[in-house]
């Protein structure tokens, strides 16, 4: 047998990078850490608005498992999308297309973390929360990544449900049920997602076209996308203020919601007006950046009111 291996060229006997395995940081990058931070934050707000006393240890472990589950779905997404990630400059340096981690390793990593996070959340909190986490992972990895993303320009609209679910999982984890509070938070993130992503898609439409992804600007055109961005921003304004109408958003939240909602509208109108050159790019990036700030401030206001006792009722 030695004759066969010895007759191979030196390169063929050299273990590839895949056989040796990637760096720890590469595996961490597969979890999309920035998305995990957002998931932890929104799930925490979902827990806090529930007003249920829960063991801090159980709440912390639940939050951790929700984050790990979200990371696992991100990992499975990167495994499935490695071919399109390789042709887009924004994603070409991700661990799989860059050759730092083998696809099989990423798949195994994602599946183990998915199963582990669901099991531990079920044991720590309850099986409703665990079921919702499992649904979120399957929705993101299978429904969004494997089907919607390459099939329809409504991909991020429907797929946005996966990113909007963490507050519902958070509430389910601490209360054992799903209430109107987390459903409203779900709706805010769900309606926020299209203008947020389409702002980026407008300036990256060439990249998406190269990868064959039917994003809205590539299918319906930039003009229609700009109109829809304004439409969703209009819709987001009243939905963003729903917590005030329902009594769990106070004065601080109301002020943040009004100013932030007007900001979203102003940025969306800028996107609508600026249609060429540097102005278009600046407007789209402005919209993308402000939308992140808007969601962060809105949820921070709720956290401050419900978690730190800053709640002052607006409606009696």
């Amino acid at each position, binding site marked *: 047998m030695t004759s066969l291996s010895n007759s191979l060229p030196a390169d063929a006997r050299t273990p590839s990078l895949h056989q040796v*395995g990637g760096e720890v940081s590469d595996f961490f990058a597969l979890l999309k850490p920035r998305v995990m931070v957002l998931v932890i934050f929104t799930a925490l707000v979902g827990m806090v608005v529930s007003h249920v006393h829960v*063991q801090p*240890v159980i709440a912390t472990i639940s939050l951790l498992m929700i984050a790990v589950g979200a990371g696992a779905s991100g990992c499975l997404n990167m495994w499935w999308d490695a071919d399109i990630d390789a042709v887009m400059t924004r994603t070409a340096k991700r661990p799989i297309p860059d050759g730092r981690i083998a696809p099989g390793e990423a798949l195994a990593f994602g599946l183990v973390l998915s199963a582990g996070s669901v099991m531990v959340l079920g044991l720590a909190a309850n099986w409703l929360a665990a079921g919702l986490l499992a649904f979120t992972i399957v929705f993101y990895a299978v429904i969004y990544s494997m089907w919607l993303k390459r099939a329809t320009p409504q991909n991020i609209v429907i797929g946005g449900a996966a990113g909007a679910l963490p507050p519902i999982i958070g509430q389910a984890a601490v209360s054992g049920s799903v209430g109107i509070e987390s459903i409203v938070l779900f709706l805010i993130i769900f309606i926020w997602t299209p203008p947020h992503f389409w702002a980026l898609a407008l300036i990256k439409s060439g990249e998406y076209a190269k990868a064959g992804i039917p994003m809205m600007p590539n299918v319906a055109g930039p003009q229609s996308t700009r109109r829809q961005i304004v439409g969703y921003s209009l819709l987001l304004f009243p939905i963003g203020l729903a917590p005030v109408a329902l009594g769990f958003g106070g004065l601080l939240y109301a002020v943040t919601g009004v100013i932030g909602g007007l900001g979203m509208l102003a940025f969306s109108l800028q996107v609508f007006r600026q249609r060429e050159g540097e102005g278009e790019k600046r407007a789209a990036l402005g919209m993308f950046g402000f939308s992140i700030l808007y969601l962060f401030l809105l949820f921070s206001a709720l956290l401050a009111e419900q978690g730190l006792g800053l709640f002052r009722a607006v409606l009696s």
Partner: protein
Amino acid sequence: MSPVPDQDPGSRALTPDETQRRRKRSIAIALVLGALVAIFYVLTIAKLGPQIMSRPL
């Protein structure tokens, strides 16, 4: 005489960089396993509370 480890005839020794990368991964896996043990221990205490010490034998 030092023992010769069984080795796949097609394999070669890892470079120092590859060895270090593999070592870091092994440490990370050990830390994750340790964290899991800690999570299950703390979870058990948090869920069962002081009763865990006074259960009937």
